[in-house]
């Protein structure tokens, strides 16, 4: 199962809990740009360069969102990658945070961990809202 599938599950989860929780995509350091030891192509086959400005990062971030969902709000980490560092979120992670700003669901690592974390977030949201998720529907 690839990351596209993982983020597909995220999009489904967001649909289920829309209106009861706020989901954000955070785009940070590109995992495998052309400058890395193991460059990897993006889904359209291009190998991208690491952004050197926030504007360049924004362009790649929008492409990332287009791959995931145009619906989800997109946040950009600064060029210092401070947010990714604070959450040890390289190359990808997902966290559930309470309305008071505490970690309710920490992220597990790896693609399998990402998927398992989404399941834990679903259970957590059920427990804190006391409600069933809404039936997913198309945007």
């Amino acid at each position, binding site marked *: *199962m*690839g*990351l*596209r599938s993982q983020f597909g599950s*995220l999009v489904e989860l*967001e649909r289920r809990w829309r209106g*009861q*929780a*706020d*989901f*954000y*995509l*955070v*785009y*940070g350091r*590109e*995992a*495998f740009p052309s400058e*890395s*030891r193991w460059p*990897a*192509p*993006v*889904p359209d086959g291009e190998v*991208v360069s690491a952004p050197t400005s*926030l504007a360049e990062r*924004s362009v790649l*971030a929008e492409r990332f*969102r287009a*791959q*995931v969902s145009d619906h989800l709000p*997109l*946040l*950009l*980490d*600064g060029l210092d990658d401070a*947010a*990714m560092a*604070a*959450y*040890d*979120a*390289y*190359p*990808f*992670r*997902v*966290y*559930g*945070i309470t*309305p*008071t*700003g505490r*970690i*309710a669901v*920490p992220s597990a*690592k*790896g*693609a*399998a961990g990402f998927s398992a974390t989404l399941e834990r977030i679903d259970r957590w949201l059920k427990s804190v809202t006391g409600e069933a998720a809404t039936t997913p529907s198309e945007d």
Partner: protein
Amino acid sequence: MRSENCWVTGSVLALALLLGVPATGAEDQVCFADCSGDLAGERDRGPRLGSVAPAIEVFRSPDAGDAATLESLLRGRPVILAFGSLT
């Protein structure tokens, strides 16, 4: 990252590990190598359950000049932060 990237990268890194080549880069990057994240020692040092969520200052795309903090994202509801990149 596409699944084929996952497996190709994982295979390359597995071979590198067998040959004794360090799997991490000079700048302490940790590569996504396999679906468990274990093969190349993907780190697991993020914030723990119940801890205060680390403060962040990020920018709302596409208007990169519009900063946002975690506090500004918390609006009385749970928040889900999903970090990722194209590759």
